[in-house]
């Protein structure tokens, strides 16, 4: 089963990278509001069980994929 983990800076956490992208987009003439920059991680899992997959991914986020002090993760499972 395939999954995607979306890692975003937590709400309220300063995101200088997002701010730099935001101001660059404005310079290009795009009328944008706030921009936040995160990270996308595609993971192939051996299990086919969605509940098991989600549980594994949550552990991965806690142990490696995110730093919970500053980042929040959203898990998306690819439907078969």
């Amino acid at each position, binding site marked *: 089963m395939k999954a995607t983990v979306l890692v975003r800076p937590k709400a309220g956490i300063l995101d*200088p990278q997002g701010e730099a992208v935001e101001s660059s987009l404005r310079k290009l003439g795009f009328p944008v509001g706030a921009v936040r920059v995160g990270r996308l991680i595609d993971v192939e899992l051996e299990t086919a069980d969605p509940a098991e997959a989600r549980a594994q991914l949550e552990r991965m986020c806690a142990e*490696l994929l995110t*730093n919970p*002090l500053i980042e929040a993760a959203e898990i998306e499972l690819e439907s078969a």
Partner: protein
Amino acid sequence: MKPKVAVVVFPGSQDDCDAAWALGSVGAEPVMVWHAERELPAATGAVVLPGGFSYGDYLRCGAIARLAPAMEAVARFAAEGGPVLGICNGFQILCEAGLLPGVLRPNVQLEFVCRDVRVTVERTDTLFTSRCEAGQELVIPVKHADGCWFAPPELLAELEANGQVLLRYAEEVNGSLDRVAGVQNSDGNVMGLMPHPEHAVDSLLGSADGALVLASLVDAARERLLAAA
């Protein structure tokens, strides 16, 4: 007696040789420890995690290095009260390993900073600043892209109340919260700092102030070994 100080070398470590040389210059016997080692050398009195870009700073600075076998040995050493100093990338690794509070984020100005900075010594009754004077201003170089230290407000308040901030920038450097340049753990035996004391151990290099930090650590290593003997 020259206390043994282990310098852990990760793939991508860069300042390991400078750290070893600088430790030797302040009276230590530096021993290089490859990251794949599972044990620290016998009679290790202190550990230094050097600067650099371990594992290419992939994912987050220090996030991969903290999984190295040698880090388990470092965590055991720290749990036994052994002095551990993390410099720059070493600081990032210790934060990711949960041995130090907070996290190092990209500099607020999104630029690599490489220059001498002034830091103020907040406390001198520690294993890492005992050779300094209270309120002393040290000139030590920084060179980092991810030195913006962050902790949530409640954690920051706890650290400040406990006096765990040992070094503070005397000028704006990277957006670090409360201008934190160096913190220690609650037990007072693990410290991390972004400035590089190993690059400031001789006035020919512009400053010898870093030697005060390293010599403090070597004193602590010596005392630990003598107490165990």
